């Protein structure tokens, strides 16, 4: 990755991070898009798995600081999701909207599952409802929003920065 591409990726990640705190509060529903996961996946497919794990850990830790319980759960979940996304990029990433949407869906759902298990504050029934219903809906919403964001960012994304 060139310095310019790394800079652009950092800007996009920063913008998505700001959107997580500026846009998501406007959607106070149980199902809402996760711009943090979109940012992590956007960056993960462009960097090495180890760097993606560090980025996921950092993003998770700072956002965990705002939650009342489960400090570290988000860091753990995003570390694994970031590493996995970066490792699987050769398999999954293609210039196809449907595959990108599936990638985002799986990334968000995996994050929710790992977060719910790591946090471990809900009963079994609640955890199952969260994983099988609300997380699936959130993942779908995130996938739709992520595809839109990727489509908007595509002109800014030079071909050499895209993973091959």
């Amino acid at each position, binding site marked *: 990755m060139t310095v310019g591409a790394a800079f652009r990726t950092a800007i996009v990640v920063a913008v998505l991070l700001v959107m*997580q705190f500026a846009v998501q509060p406007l959607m106070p529903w149980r199902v809402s898009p996760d711009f943090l996961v979109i940012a992590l996946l956007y960056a993960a497919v462009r960097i090495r798995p180890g760097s993606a794990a560090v980025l996921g*850990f950092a993003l998770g830790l700072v956002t965990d600081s705002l939650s009342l319980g489960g400090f570290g759960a988000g860091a753990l979940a995003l*570390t694994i999701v970031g590493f996995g996304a970066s490792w699987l990029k050769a398999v999954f990433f293609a210039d196809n909207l449907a595959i990108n949407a599936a990638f985002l869906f799986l990334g968000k759902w995996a994050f929710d599952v790992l977060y719910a298990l790591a946090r471990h504050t809900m009963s079994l029934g609640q955890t199952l409802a969260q994983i099988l219903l609300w997380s699936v809906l959130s993942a779908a919403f995130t996938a739709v929003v992520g595809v839109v964001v990727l489509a908007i960012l595509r002109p800014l994304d030079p071909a050499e920065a895209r993973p091959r």
Partner: protein
Amino acid sequence: MARAARSGTRFDIAILVLCVVLSLLTLALPQPMRAPVAGALRRTVMAPLVTVQRGTEQWRVAWRESERLALGHDSLVLAAANANALRLENDRLRSLLGLGSRLQWGFVPAEALQATARPGDVITSLVLSAGSNAGIAMYSPVVGPDGVIGLVQSADPTTSIAMLFSNPDFRVSAMTADGGVFGIVYPHAGSGGDGYLLELRNVVFSTLLKPGTQIITSGLGGVFPRGIPVGRVVAEINTTEGWSRTYLLRPAVNPANVTSVMVMTPYRATQGVGNVWALPASAESAQRRVLGAADSLAKRAAALDAARRLARADSIKADSIKADSARADSVRRARAPGGGPS
């Protein structure tokens, strides 16, 4: 090359393991140790993002509040519109009650149920919510606080149908309020707003009626008693008949606004109504006279007060001038050579 890739993969896995271990350690931290770390992150790295989130929350709350205010404003406007309609209805009912108390007996109050008509259509009949069981009979006069509305065409036990003055078959004998000029009132053939105008026909050619002259029932037709307002003269209509005049009248009542009426029983109609409809006008003019007198009294009192104040100011001014001149004289005397208080 393969060796380099292998070492890179090992390095990535090592970093992953390190991050996972750190995450687990963070998860396992006891609460007293977590709080300072989370607090430090909130105060440093997360501070700008928290500010952004706070701004967004405030904006959302403001948006909701504005929506709530808009809703409140809309309901207030609706309530105000309803209040206006209620006030108008209240006024109508009050005037109807006033008429009832003046008529004292021999009348039946009824609701007027208007047939749904297209805008611009002339209403020529009304269904009334009282019938023969209440003493209403055919040709009973239908009146309102402002004057003639029509007469009953058919009376069922519980409802009746009234022919309005806008009906082509309606006629009523009428005269000027002073009883000097007589004629027959017919509906004026027109449409829309003109459909409710009336004509006073067969007026003696030698008499001229000024616009605004009040026309009342004469009591000669046998249906309406004398003294119920019919309308006011608008203008003379040029007709081909050369021996009498015809005048256009603006009716005292607008049938489109009639919601409640009084139906006079036939016996009451034969007994006359005296000056029942003239009373409100005379009371109004008396009130105007009282108010005028009070105004002139107040004006006179104000003028007297002003004159008294002026006089008092003049006397004070004169006194002060006198005192000043006396003081100046004494000073002059004191300064004069050989002068002084004696």
